């Protein structure tokens, strides 16, 4: 269940990134509200996930998976280049998350 909460929290955190991008420096009120609401919901689901995860472990997974999601969406939807340096960072995060899971920390 904690993984589901963390996944939902990450979706909202990625939504924050997209909404903030469309908010035109927060001159656009609709996207600004979407940004803040997503941020609040993401925080709420993060807190649900942290009921089970260690705070340090859960927070690190949450913020890094959101980073991976933002980078991948940027490449898939917004035509940003996915270079080897970004790929290496993504790989390190995936290996680290799997390692934490297999070692019983998450």
């Amino acid at each position, binding site marked *: 269940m904690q993984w589901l909460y963390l996944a939902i929290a990450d979706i909202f955190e990625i939504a*924050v*990134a*997209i909404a*903030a*991008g469309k*908010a035109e*420096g*927060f001159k656009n009120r609709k996207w*600004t509200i979407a*940004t*803040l609401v997503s*941020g609040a919901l993401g*925080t*709420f689901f*993060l*807190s*649900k996930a*942290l*009921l089970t995860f*260690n*705070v*340090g*472990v*859960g*927070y*690190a*997974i949450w*913020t*890094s998976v959101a*980073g*991976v999601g*933002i*980078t991948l*969406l*940027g490449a898939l939807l*917004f*035509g*940003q*280049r996915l*270079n080897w*340096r*970004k790929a*290496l*960072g*993504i*790989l*390190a*995060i995936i*290996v*680290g*998350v799997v*390692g*934490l899971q297999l*070692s*019983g*920390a998450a």
Partner: protein
Amino acid sequence: MSDTGRTSANSWLTLLLAGVFEIGYALSVGGSHGFTRLTWSLVAVVFFLLTLWALSVALRTIDVSIGYAVWAGIGAAGAALLGPVFFDESLNGVQALWLGLIIVGVVWLKLADRPEKAQDPVETPLVAQGTAARAQEAQVAER
């Protein structure tokens, strides 16, 4: 000291402060127990606003991807180190190693997300928007 030097030092100090606030955010969100404990929940909201405000101020002068990487790194490393102090939790050596890899990974990823200004100016705004999402949120919180 020149004005530029002082401004730069202040920006980095503010960035470090933003990182400390982010640690406070992570710990208090955990301590809120799913927002069922009032005091921790209120502290979490305060840290949420403080971290965004400080980050936005720092990123006026510090490069967005560098600033974001430093901020995220301090937040994640601080939460990992202080989690066991505030809560009844611990990691063994192997687990700490995997956690360290994740933190290095996210800092690396943020640094790699620097816009390629010279090569493709059309791409730049989107890249910057992605990495600066919470920074931009901060600017709104400030207003």
